[in-house]
């Protein structure tokens, strides 16, 4: 999957179902945004009715509300509580099972040959997938499950037609325009019409586009798409200071960590909604007969006290130390570990923090502290 | 008994007095004598008058405390280059622990009353002595505190 590879066309919105059908016919499990429990989440899509047409969202620190908006298209919402990592790096995953044989045991690894297709992937989310690629498949070790699924994954991206109040992708160089890492990219155009501008980003995408009945994209289509993206970008209010990696590392012992601690509930919401957080734990279990054992991997969070437990006690006893671990890992250490920031500016951690702690605001505070010191 | 010149040299060579002004070293030598202790012999007994302190030249000394119902507990061992004893600087100048040679040990013994008198008469000498004994006390206190942590003990103890 590379940059836009040339194929461009207009798909009328009423033909969106044909795209879904083509993806299904190629054997993919198609996952996309859908309405559930008053939130837009990612789940299996059977048909176009599963998409949240006419629904928009309002987000602010500690706040997420959906609203009906007759003018809203299929992808008028911004990112919700789910991210794509839950399909490539599931929250609970059986790594293997083992059965006792004589004095020993034998190990079986589960196989999953499902091919995944994601529709509605935002620029920041592509960035997040690429960040997790670096963790799970570009280091000295490869996570087999992740690597295979990711490699076979079809990405149908969407350019954001608006930004949430919590978005700051533009200052993370992660959006709002989709520029790479997709098979198809959609831009929903609704000025006096309802169409999708489709751009291809891979040979797979090209082949897919050929299966669809489309018309040629004209200059005015590109102009409308560009104007919409420019407006989205212009509406982004929050930003992450570019010197934050060094700033945080200079103030690891500042008193402000205690101020954050006094607000933070250590609930771990931020790490669960974060599309790049990859920490996990493993649990080994046996059944009652003791003949059958399994190893499961579960999402874990650096906000849990047990996370840093070594015999004798946990390293990070205080909430301040645990918040510091999270934000410094995300914004500072990630650069040293993986060559990029660990933040895409998606704003989920701001929205889903029950007390509305805002990563951009805390970053700005540390920059102020840095200026004063 | 060795000559005063010999004691002078031993004092100047011992780490505890190294770098000290020769004049002061000579004053200290005037209070010093050369002694040796067989393995098992006590240099110091708890409760006795602290009338000497010792610079260990060779050998090893255990600082011990006697506890009821068991053999003595060794609190620390001192070796070549160490200084033994500071109760001679702390009124009422009584030893708080035992010190026993655990092998043949050769020391420079310094007459505490003699040196206290000289330090009283020349506070600069007193200052020199205190600035050398303080780091020793500090090091021993740190070591005692480290051992208080029971670093190698069972991690589950007390939880």
């Amino acid at each position, binding site marked *: 999957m590379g940059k836009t590879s040339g194929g461009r066309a207009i798909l009328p919105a009423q033909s969106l179902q044909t795209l879904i059908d083509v993806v299904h016919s190629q054997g993919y499990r198609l996952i996309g945004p859908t309405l559930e429990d008053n939130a837009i989440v990612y789940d299996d899509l059977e048909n176009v009715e599963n998409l949240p047409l006419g629904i928009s969202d309002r987000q602010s620190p500690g706040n997420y509300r959906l609203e009906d908006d007759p003018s809203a298209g299929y992808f008028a919402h911004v990112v919700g509580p789910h991210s794509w990592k839950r399909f490539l790096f599931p929250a609970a995953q059986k*790594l*293997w099972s083992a059965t006792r044989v004589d004095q*020993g*045991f034998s*190990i*079986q*690894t589960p*196989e999953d040959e499902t091919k995944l297709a994601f529709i509605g992937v935002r620029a920041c989310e592509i960035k997040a997938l690429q960040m997790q690629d670096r*963790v799970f498949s570009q*280091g*000295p*070790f490869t*996570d*087999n499950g992740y690597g295979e699924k990711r490699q076979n994954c079809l990405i149908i991206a969407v350019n954001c037609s608006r930004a949430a109040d919590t978005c700051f992708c533009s200052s993370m160089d992660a959006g709002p325009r989709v520029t790479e890492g997709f098979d198809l990219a959609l831009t929903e155009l609704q000025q006096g019409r309802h169409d999708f501008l489709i751009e291809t980003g891979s040979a797979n995408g090209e082949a897919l586009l050929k299966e669809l009945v489309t018309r040629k994209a004209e200059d005015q289509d590109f102009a409308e798409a560009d104007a919409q993206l420019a407006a989205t970008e212009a509406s982004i209010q929050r930003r992450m200071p570019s010197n934050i990696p060094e700033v945080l590392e200079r103030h*690891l012992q500042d008193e402000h960590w205690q101020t954050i601690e006094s607000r933070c509930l250590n609930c771990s919401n931020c790490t669960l909604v974060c599309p790049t957080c*990859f*920490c*996990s*734990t*493993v649990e*080994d*279990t*046996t059944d009652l007969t003791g003949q059958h*054992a399994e*190893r499961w991997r579960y999402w*874990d969070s*650096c906000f849990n006290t047990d996370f*840093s437990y*070594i*015999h004798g006690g946990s*390293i990070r*006893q*205080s909430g*301040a130390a645990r918040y*510091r*671990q999270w934000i410094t890992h995300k914004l500072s*250490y990630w650069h*040293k570990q993986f060559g990029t920031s660990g933040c895409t500016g998606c704003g989920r951690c701001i929205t889903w923090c029950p007390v509305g702690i805002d990563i951009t605001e805390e970053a700005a505070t540390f920059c102020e502290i840095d200026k004063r010191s | 008994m060795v000559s005063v010149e010999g004691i002078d040299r031993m004092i100047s060579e011992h780490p505890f007095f190294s770098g000290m002004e020769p004049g002061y070293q000579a004053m200290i030598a005037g209070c010093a004598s050369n002694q040796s202790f067989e393995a098992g012999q006590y240099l110091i007994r708890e409760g006795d008058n602290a009338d000497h302190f010792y610079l260990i030249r060779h050998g090893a000394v*255990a600082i*011990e405390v006697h506890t009821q119902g068991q*053999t003595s*507990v*060794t*609190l*620390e*061992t001192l*070796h*070549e*280059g160490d200084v033994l004893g500071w109760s001679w600087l702390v009124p009422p100048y009584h030893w708080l622990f035992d010190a026993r040679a655990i092998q043949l040990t050769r020391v420079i013994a310094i007459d505490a009353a003699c040196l206290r008198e000289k330090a009283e008469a020349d506070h600069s000498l007193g200052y020199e002595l205190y600035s050398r004994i303080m780091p020793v006390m500090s090091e021993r206190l*740190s*070591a005692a505190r*480290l*051992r208080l*942590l*029971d*670093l*190698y003990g*069972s*991690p*589950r103890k007390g939880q």
Partner: protein
Amino acid sequence: MKTSQDPMTPNLFQVQRIRRELADTFTLELTAESNNEFPFLPGQFNMIYLFGSGEVPISISGDPAQPNRLIHTIRAVGSVTEGLKSCKSGDMLGIRGPFGSAWPVEQATGQDIVIITGGIGLAPLRPAIYHLLANRQRYGKIVILYGARTPADILFRKELERWRSRFDISVEVTVDQAVSNWSGRVGVVPKLINRADFAPEETTALICGPEIMMRFSVKALQERGVKEDHIYVSMERNMKCAIGFCGHCQLGSQFVCKDGPVFPYSQISSAFRIREL
């Protein structure tokens, strides 16, 4: 069933012998079910899986020149290690590894070597000691400084005595507590550093023990003038995956499992300065 080697899937090893070292410490001798050799570098560790009970990170304590037997010395401090303690010969265990960085025995060629360790910390250093002794002529002075809780807690006591009896290596053992029948040293390890015989500016120091002991040992070494980047420490953090996926063992920007456990002190000095890092 997938046959490709997933880094999270253990290989089977059989317990050949179990040897009691101390009241709570034991050594397992394992061989691969496949009969393959198990090459490793001194300082590396494995994840040992006890069927149904769980997995623990344990450093390798055997001789790197004998890759046909895998040796682990383990202190029973939790449910898995307690379970491993009751292993019998013939039992099967899962092994993932070897993982992590090694003691810099090659880079230290020509240098004096000071090994500073306490308690179970001697186990991860033993492979390095074997290597140094097998290549004795390539190094300057070799000094081993070891601390234990009491004389009864001295790990590998017979070996320490054997090393001590050699003329080309100096071994000092000290304990925290003893009664008067102990004729050795009583005191802390950092104090041994002040008097040990080595040339500070040409010394590589290898340290493994409780973090506080390492902190004070580094200080004592620095006071003697040993260069910061010639001091190596083996760090302990929570490890679940051993391959940098699970995030538990992070220490600043380092993953202890894959960037460590052996670090040049200069690389992780912040861990000694900043609390709860």
